[in-house]
């Protein structure tokens, strides 16, 4: 659910409060077309019921999840959009029915948090490696000159194997 989702949620919440109805009001007229099972699954795929831990709704074999899918089908027949259906379940059961936390409030942390840490690590590493752009002035010669031709490569390979025999 993006920023738009919040507005929608607010609108639905307001509509519910105003009408006092338990059932949500739909703004679109019922399309009447029975949805295919694939259409139902496409929506259920990104949902989890609160009971069946970590099993996506589209494949969960329990009876309760089957009933949820039936509910989705009914809503689709009534002409609801995917977002409306998600919001409907969120209102009833909380954010946990969605496959990913909605981008709002505290949940922003999950989307930003790792990247802040990773960026910090990357900056540290970049600073370390950036210094290397300046030619190292140390007295230490490069221990293994790059291979310039087949002979060099062969020599290095042999040297490496020998060294392994020695040290390893």
């Amino acid at each position, binding site marked *: 659910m993006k920023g738009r989702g919040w507005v929608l949620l607010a609108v639905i919440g307001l509509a519910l409060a105003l009408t006092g109805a338990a059932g949500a009001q739909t703004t679109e007229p019922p399309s009447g077309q029975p949805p295919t099972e694939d259409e139902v699954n496409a929506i259920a795929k990104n949902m989890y019921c609160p009971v069946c831990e970590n099993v996506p709704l589209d494949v969960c074999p329990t009876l309760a999840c089957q009933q949820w899918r039936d509910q989705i089908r009914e809503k689709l027949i009534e002409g609801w959009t995917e977002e409306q259906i998600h919001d409907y379940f969120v209102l009833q059961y909380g954010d946990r029915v969605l496959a990913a*936390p909605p981008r709002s409030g505290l949940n922003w942390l999950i989307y930003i948090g790792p990247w802040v840490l990773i960026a910090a*690590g990357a900056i540290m590493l970049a600073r370390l490696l950036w210094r*290397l752009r300046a030619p190292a002035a140390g007295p230490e010669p490069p221990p293994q000159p790059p291979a310039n031709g087949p002979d060099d490569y062969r020599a290095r390979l042999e040297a490496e194997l020998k060294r392994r025999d020695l040290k390893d």
Partner: protein
Amino acid sequence: MIANVGYGALVITLLTALYGIGAALYGALRGRPRWVDSARNAMLLTFPLLTISALSITALLVANAFEVSYVQAVTSRSMPTYLRITALWGGQPGSLVFWSWLMALFATAVTLRDWRRDREFLPWVIVVSLVTLAFFLILSIGFENPFQRYWATPSGAVITAMFQPQGTTLFVPPDGRGLNPLLRHPGMIIHPPMLYLGFVSLVIPYAFAMAALVTGRTDDRWLRLTRRWTLWAWVFLSLGLILGGRWAYDVLGWGGYWGWDPVEVAALLPWLTATPFLHSAMIQEKRGIFKHWNMLLVILTFEVMIWATFLTRSGVLSSVHAFAQSAIGPLFFAFIIITTVLSLGLLIKRWPELKSEGELRSLLSRESLFLINNLLFIAILIVCIWGVFFPIFTEAAGVIGQIFPGVAHIFTGQKVTVGPIFYESATGPLWAALLFLMGIAPLSAWGSSTARTLGRAVWKPALVATLALGAVFVVAGVRNGVALLALWLCMFVTAVTLYEFYRAAMARSRAHGMNMLVALWQLAGRNRRRYGGYIIHLGVVLMAVGIIGIELFQTETQASLALGESVTLGRYTARYDSLAEFDTNDNRNVARAVITLFKDGVPVGELYPRRDYFYESEQPMTIPGVRSSIEDDFYILLINWQPISTQTATFKLYHNPLVNWLWFGAAIFLLGTFVAAWPEKEPDAVIETRARRAAVQA
């Protein structure tokens, strides 16, 4: 009786471990080798003692001793014997004893090695191993005792206790609850022991690292000594994860192998730190740099492993309340905090002594690229830890909202679900970057490498990969941009790796006038780590191809069919022929459909998707019907049916392109790890012989 023996053995093991810790500390600090020897004997004793304990549980499981609460919780009369035995790790109390038993096994193996050259490490390796073991034993004895029994009070209530409370009689339930049906699968039977083997063997490198820090012998000796341990730990971890994936594919019935379930992710965490450690350890051995970093990684690996052990079995991931209710959670937490503080304290104390012997000299040198590899793995680790803990965090943060109503709308205390979408989008680019590194790192040189030398080595494999990608574009008609990029990376790594094998074998065969195959064999035999590593890389590429196939090209459909009707998905058509529903003698109700499968209109076989319902645990299980080929899998699930008429049934069909490359790649991957980890001749003996020879010549 057997329960008492098992429990007694646990208690004696704990006392032995505590004695061993004391004796090792005293011996090391006061310089009394005999005390260290005594501690070593104590450590050796833990294994037979824990064997008695583990065998006791197994005997109780096999004998249907339902008066023991653990036995009652994980077995039932209808279970076959082999499943009863494996129920040892079917629940938390048994798992913890099993963990301790494996830990004792590894500790014994380490203790039995030749310590003459590393005498000063011995007491500290014993202390670290035994402290870890003692921690797990305390958990088993005090909180998750697998030998507790049921007792009936005169009022008719049933209580659990280890020893008979006054005025009670032993209560024997008529039958047990049975093992979770999902766990009754060969993959699931071997998967936990493999993961646990991986987990416990990670204690060994940590123990040596700590020994190095305590003693101040901070050269890379500890790394060399534990290299193979880490590799074997990694083999077991990888195998455990792969088996878990296979189990999910076969049993969980959602058409996939990895669902980014929090428990799965928790099991992946130690792998995500052990893998970069294996890489960066090579840099320290080669160049004498990154010593601090390696210490940090080995500490992190240990702590993450302890966390993973806890998370995979405790149920805390389902709810933060499970953590608060069980005493085990806070204890694990305390153990992790204490060991982290102590390890970091030691590291800080030795910080100046761990100075690098060399320095990073070039941006494109192999060590720089390894460092970037490390960063990427740690980045994936961060994403995973964040994802696993975030739901617990949002739930727990509700407290803040309760205390400060002003911010209650932010700290709602609502639990959230962090599903595959989050992990896949966050880690996808990181995995891709790792693949790219896997391609260029083998071509870069140690020490220094310039863009020009690297470019000269890279262009040939890059060209081969691009040509191969062109073929995929034209022949296979792949147009998905992400897939094309990912496939290019896979081909690039393959080209580089094969080229590395080729040019090394070529060079040797020319130089020594030997056959190419012989040259290749000798090469792999003499530098097992490098060429084993390359085989692992090839395995990873094949696995990546499988993952690309199923992640980007999986298609699915669902249909309700009457008898004789068909549904088509891509080139496959499935015809619903019949359905039978029956009870089995192991307390299952099975509904099994017969499907005739056609590919391009030609019949290719019958599939039998089924739904097993377990009466004891009231749990359904969906077993797919699968037709596998190198090209793809056709995977069909029985979702629903009319119980009375069985005339119509609902099926879910998946087409999983290339998924078998994943399993095939996993086999190559494991082959590579075996090549890399296979014992070589004792390295010290080689050094000594060479030194002697050199002295004689001089």
